[in-house]
C-alpha cells in the first residue's frame, strides 16, 4: 500500500469512528431523538400554589406514561400563583375536568406532573387551563404539620 493510500485509510477510519460516536451520543445518550421527532403538540396551562422543585422540560405523565413536557414556569401576576404551561402530544385528548398534581418519582427523584383524567364529555383544547390542581408536597410543611399535631395531642392529654 502506498503512503497516500495509507493516509487516506487512516483519515477514513478516524472520520467513521467519530461519526459512529456522534450517532451514539445523539441517539442513545442524549435526548436528540426525542427533540428531533418533534411531534405536534398542544398547550395546556395550570395554576399551582406551590410547584416545589418542578423544572422546565419535566415530564407530564398520564397513568405513568409520558405524554408531554413542561414548556415554561412563571408567576401569574394577577394572583401570585405559579403558572405552568405544558405541551401535550396531540395524540392524547384529555377530558375538560382532568386534574393535575405535582408528584415525585421515588423518594429522591425528579418531580413531574401527573394527570388524572375525569369523566367529562368535553375535551381540553389548545390553550385551555386545567382547573383542578394539587401542589407539590413540601417536606418542611409536612414536618411542620406533623409537629403541630404532635404538640396538640400532647396538650389534650394533660
Amino acid at each position, binding site marked *: 500500500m502506498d503512503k497516500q493510500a495509507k493516509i487516506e485509510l*487512516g483519515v477514513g477510519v478516524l472520520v467513521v469512528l*467519530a461519526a459512529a460516536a456522534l450517532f451514539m451520543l445523539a441517539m442513545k445518550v*442524549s*435526548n436528540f431523538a426525542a427533540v428531533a421527532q418533534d411531534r405536534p403538540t398542544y398547550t395546556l396551562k395550570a395554576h399551582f400554589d406551590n410547584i416545589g422543585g418542578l423544572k422546565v422540560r419535566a415530564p407530564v405523565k398520564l397513568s405513568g406514561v409520558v405524554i408531554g413536557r413542561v414548556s415554561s414556569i412563571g408567576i401569574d401576576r394577577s394572583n401570585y400563583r405559579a403558572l405552568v404551561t405544558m405541551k401535550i402530544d396531540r395524540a392524547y385528548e384529555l377530558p375538560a375536568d382532568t386534574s393535575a398534581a405535582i408528584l415525585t418519582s421515588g423518594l429522591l427523584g425528579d418531580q413531574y406532573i401527573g394527570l388524572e383524567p375525569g369523566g367529562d364529555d368535553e375535551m381540553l383544547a389548545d390553550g385551555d387551563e386545567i382547573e383542578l390542581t394539587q401542589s407539590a408536597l413540601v417536606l418542611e410543611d409536612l414536618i411542620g404539620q406533623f409537629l403541630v399535631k404532635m404538640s396538640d395531642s400532647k396538650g389534650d392529654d394533660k
Partner: protein
Amino acid sequence: MIRMLRAIGRWGLSRLRAAGRAGLFLLGLLPALAYPFWRVRLLLKQVYNTGTLSLPIILTAGLFVGMVLGLQGYNVLVDYNSEEAVGTMTALSLLRELGPVVTALLFVGRAGSALTAEIGLMRSTEQLSALEMMAVDPVRFIFAPRFVAVVLVVPLLTLIFTALGILGGYLVAVGWLGVDDGAFWSQMTAHVDWQDDVVNGVIKSVVFAVWIAVVALFQGEEAPPTSEGVSYATTRTVVQGSLGVLALDFVLTALMFN
C-alpha cells in the same frame, strides 16, 4: 529595590511582546486558513499525523476513564439505592468536562509537542527560509494545514473519547456490577440534553483546539534554532497548552452551565 522592579517590568514587557507576536502570528494565519481545503492532500496528511495516530491513546484513555467513573459512581450511588444513575453521572461528567479536557490534555502531549518540534526543526534547519526562497509561502503551506487539521481533529477525538468512555462505564456498571441495562440507558436519555450537554462539549473542544494549535505552532515558530531551543519550546507547548486548556475550561464552564 529599583533593580527588582526593573526585572519585573522587563519580564512583563517580554511576556506582553510574546503575546503580541502570538496575536500577529494568528492574524497572519487567518487569511490562509481556506487554502488547505484546496490542497486537500496537505490537510489529509496532517489529519493523519495528528488525528489517526492519536487514536490509540484516545481510545485506551477513554475506555479506562469511563470504567473508573462507572466504578466510583457505583460505589457512591449504591448507598442511596440509586445505582441506575451511574449512567447519567458517567455521561454528564464525560460530555461536559472530562471528554473535552482530557482529550485536549492528551492531544497537547501527543500531537502538540510533535508539531512544535517539527516546526522548530524546520526553522533551525532553515527549511522555512528555503521554502520562501522558492516562492512557496510557509504560512499557507506549513502552518495553515496544521492549524486547520488540529481544529478539525480535536472535536472528532473528543466525540470518540466520550462515546468510548460511556461504553466503558456501561461495561463496568452493567456487565460487572449488575446495574439494570434498561435503566442505565433510559435514565441517561432522560437527563442528558442534546443542546446543553453534547453541543456545549463540542464547542469547548473547538475552543481548546484553537488554543492548542496557536500555542504549538507559535512555539515552534519562536523556538531558537538550536537543539536546546527546540527542546525548551516543546516543553513550553505542553505546559502552556495544558494550563491554557484548564483555564479556558473554567471560563467556558462558568459561561455555559450557569
